[in-house]
């Protein structure tokens, strides 16, 4: 196995400049986001059963499609204020199923997953997103995995079941949003799962969402959001008891390098 040098952390993100455009953006986008969410929540009891009837697909599959569409609508809403740059976000970058690992800078990172070229993906998350009562029913219908409440063993068991059904999984291996733009410590769960199930890992790097709305901020600011899919990493060469550690280091180094270039 090749020894991987420790990743160089990205420098802290530049400070945000909040001018009139941030006020206008927040005044326009927040009400639209609330309206969008209300519309989706109210339409769901009609649209989801109809879609199930029309397509014959399982409800969880339909809800994952619905959630991706929600993200796509959000991207349209903020498009007048935000430029999206998609780098290598093509379908052939994502073997199905795969484990996608994402760096985490903002609440809106998860919304950006509307830009993924496929919809059959679920999230493995900590508990707090499941406490947002307006999103939680959809997350549960989509079979998102609450790793914290379920515990490691049960959580990974659910993840293995989803992968076995061909459903890709997304993880924020940092667990928390970065406060300074640097990559934080990576949890091992996604990498252990990849090694155990021999599922390829696709690192996806996000930048710009920390300018859009970093942790603790209230006003959104116009920005450019870059989403870049890196080459899939085959876990089969990362063997032995510390295989997941080497895989984690390899993926983190690749993400740190890509994020540095995105600056």
């Amino acid at each position, binding site marked *: 196995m090749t020894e991987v040098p420790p990743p160089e952390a990205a420098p802290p993100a530049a400070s945000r400049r909040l001018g009139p455009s941030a006020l206008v953006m927040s005044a326009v986008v927040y009400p639209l986001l609330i309206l969008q969410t209300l519309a989706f929540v109210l339409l769901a009891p009609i649209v989801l059963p109809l879609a199930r009837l029309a397509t014959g697909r399982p409800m969880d599959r339909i809800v994952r499609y619905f959630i991706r569409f929600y993200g796509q609508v959000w991207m349209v809403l903020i498009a007048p204020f935000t430029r999206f740059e998609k780098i290598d976000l093509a379908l052939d970058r994502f073997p199905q199923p795969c484990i996608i690992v994402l760096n985490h800078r903002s609440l809106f990172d998860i919304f950006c997953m509307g830009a993924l070229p496929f919809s059959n993906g679920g999230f493995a998350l*900590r508990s707090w997103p499941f406490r947002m009562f307006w999103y939680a029913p959809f997350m549960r219908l989509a079979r998102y995995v609450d790793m914290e409440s379920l515990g490691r063993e049960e959580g990974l068991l659910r993840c293995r079941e989803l992968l076995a059904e061909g459903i890709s999984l997304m993880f924020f291996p940092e667990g928390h949003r970065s406060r300074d733009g640097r990559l934080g410590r990576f949890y091992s769960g996604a990498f252990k799962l990849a090694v155990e199930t021999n599922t390829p890992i696709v690192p996806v790097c996000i930048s710009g969402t920390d300018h859009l709305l970093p942790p603790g901020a209230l006003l959104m600011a116009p920005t450019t959001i870059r989403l870049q899919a890196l080459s899939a990493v085959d876990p089969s060469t990362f063997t032995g008891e510390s295989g997941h*550690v080497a895989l984690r280091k390899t993926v983190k180094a690749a993400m740190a390098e890509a994020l540095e270039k995105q600056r």
Partner: protein
Amino acid sequence: MQQDIQKDIIDTVNTALAEEFELDAEAMKPEAHLFNELGLDSLDAVDMVIVLEKAFGCKLRDEQAIREIRTLGDLYAFIETKRKELE
């Protein structure tokens, strides 16, 4: 001899945890609080037990004592006691 055993335990624990949890070697002092200072959390607790079981080749997960560990020093002492029991 006693010091050698302790150093062996300290080195093994520090190496295993530093690799698993991306910890800085400088921060790994006996008085360092696992959760408050080293940044481990509930998701890490199970992984920590698994990593230490692999490193020392003995079962630790059913031990009540491991739930009361707060600092790295507590952890070294726990491992040392466990080793003596198995000798």
